[in-house]
């Protein structure tokens, strides 16, 4: 299978700090790839290199190749069109202080879509795609800030879907949510991978085991192990991976 993202020899420095060390990973399409590891291991930093959100930080120097469908995202693509193709969902649900409808229509509007009919269609499809349509269809004009945390997070997923990406990056998308909302998001990921490629940072080992196809274990900026999730959780190759997933540290 042709990989979606092909990352090789990626090094990232925050000023003096060497945050990612020679990271090489292939992320396959229509899979959920989980990135696990203790805090500060570089998994979120790695995630943000995939849609160049690190560009927004001061003093970040990146070296190496990040290819999306064979094109280098740092050398051959601009950050704006990259981010339209690679959507992102954040740890804290962050809907804009606008109506539910306006939140979802934000991405398409940025891309210049003005037709009301077209926007309505995109918004409905995105909300259905994020499994929240039934809950909000009668209150599309109401502010998104009135939704519960779990609903807000699914709205943020809908907002990302509406921009028409083919990859979704999720940075600990359930860590601020209750168990019921968490399981809804997890089900949603399994559903969404049919159409999208998902890369998810998670602190929760069970979550990685439940929903991901492949798992990468990060430690101190390095990828220690990257393999099939079933294999990693049943027979980790590296002693450090085993220690981490059995809860001996981290």
């Amino acid at each position: 299978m042709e990989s979606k993202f092909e990352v090789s020899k990626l090094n990232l420095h925050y000023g003096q700090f060497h945050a990612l060390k020679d990271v090489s990973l292939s992320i396959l399409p229509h899979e959920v790839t989980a990135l696990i590891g203790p805090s500060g291991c570089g998994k979120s930093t790695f995630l943000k290199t995939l849609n160049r959100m690190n560009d927004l930080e001061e003093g970040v120097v990146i070296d190496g190749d990040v290819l999306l469908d064979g094109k280098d995202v740092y050398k051959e693509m601009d950050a704006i069109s990259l981010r339209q193709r690679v959507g992102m969902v954040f740890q804290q649900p962050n809907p804009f202080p606008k109506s539910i409808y306006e939140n979802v229509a934000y991405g398409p509007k940025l891309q210049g879509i003005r037709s009301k009919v077209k926007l309505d269609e995109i918004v409905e499809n995105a909300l259905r795609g994020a499994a929240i349509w039934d809950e909000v269809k009668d209150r599309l004009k109401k502010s998104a800030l009135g939704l519960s945390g779990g609903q807000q997070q699914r709205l943020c997923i809908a907002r990302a879907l509406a921009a028409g990406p083919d990859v979704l990056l999720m940075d600990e998308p359930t860590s601020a949510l209750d168990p019921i909302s968490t399981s809804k998001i997890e089900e949603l990921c399994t559903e969404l991978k049919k159409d999208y490629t998902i890369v998810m940072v998670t602190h929760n080992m069970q979550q990685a085991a439940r929903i991901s196809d492949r798992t990468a274990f990060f430690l101190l900026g390095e990828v220690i192990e990257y393999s099939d999730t079933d294999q990693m959780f049943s027979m980790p190759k590296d002693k450090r991976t085993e220690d981490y997933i059995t809860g001996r540290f981290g």
Partner: protein
Amino acid sequence: MKANEKAKRVDRVMTWIFVAVAGFFILLLIAFALLVIGRGIAGFEPYMLSFTRDGIGNQLFNTVYLVVLALLFSVPLGIATGVYLAEYAKPGKVTHFLSICIETLSSLPSIVVGLFGYLVFIVMVGAQWNLVSGALAVSILNLPLIATTTKDAMESMPKGYRMGSMGLGATHWQTIRRVLLPACMPRILTGIILAAGRVFGEAAALLYTAGMSTDINWSNWDITSPTCPLNPFRPGETLALHIWASRTEAIRPDAAQIANFSSAVLLILVFAFSIGARVLGRRMERKLAGGK
């Protein structure tokens, strides 16, 4: 045990002190408003409300018109300055210096600003007293207020808004224009209310800019004519100046009554404006936050 008792007693006393201070100021405000409005009504004669040379209708109109003109200058410029400081200026010596300059601007004595306005907008331009130069002069005073509230509002926005917007492929400007500024609007509006309040009451900065005379012909709608109400380049005495002029020059036997009545009208105008703007702001906020 004993320490707890003492702490509780101090706590009760402090609560009372704060309630008393707050109560004192509320009473002071009410008494003040009643006194000003009461005295205004006491000396009231129907002719005072007329839009003629004797009434204060023209001054009332000039005041509102001047506020509109001043906000026309200071709102766009103030918001732009605030956005620049919050979003574009690199933190450093230059930005810091700029911030100090802006703060200093707001604490300039208004008579100095008035004389500056006179030199620049009247003498250098070679014009006579006019409303635009008055508006420009008071803009110098209220621009910092709008710039600072905008900057503070922008800086208090959650990082998630910015990240969410950029993550969807928005540019920096799109993020500011479509997410951050609308979200800041209720707070910026508060700054604008304060700024407008300053214009309503300003007198010294207008003495030598907007001028102390007013001659309006309400049937003349040729905007280039010096007596057309809407001509922004005509002299326009405001209510605050009219109070001062009536009290100092006493050109009429009932000048004191006119001054009192003008004060009452000005007070009511300011109250009405600030309540109206607050209602608008609260409605905006509720719309953003999604009330029940």
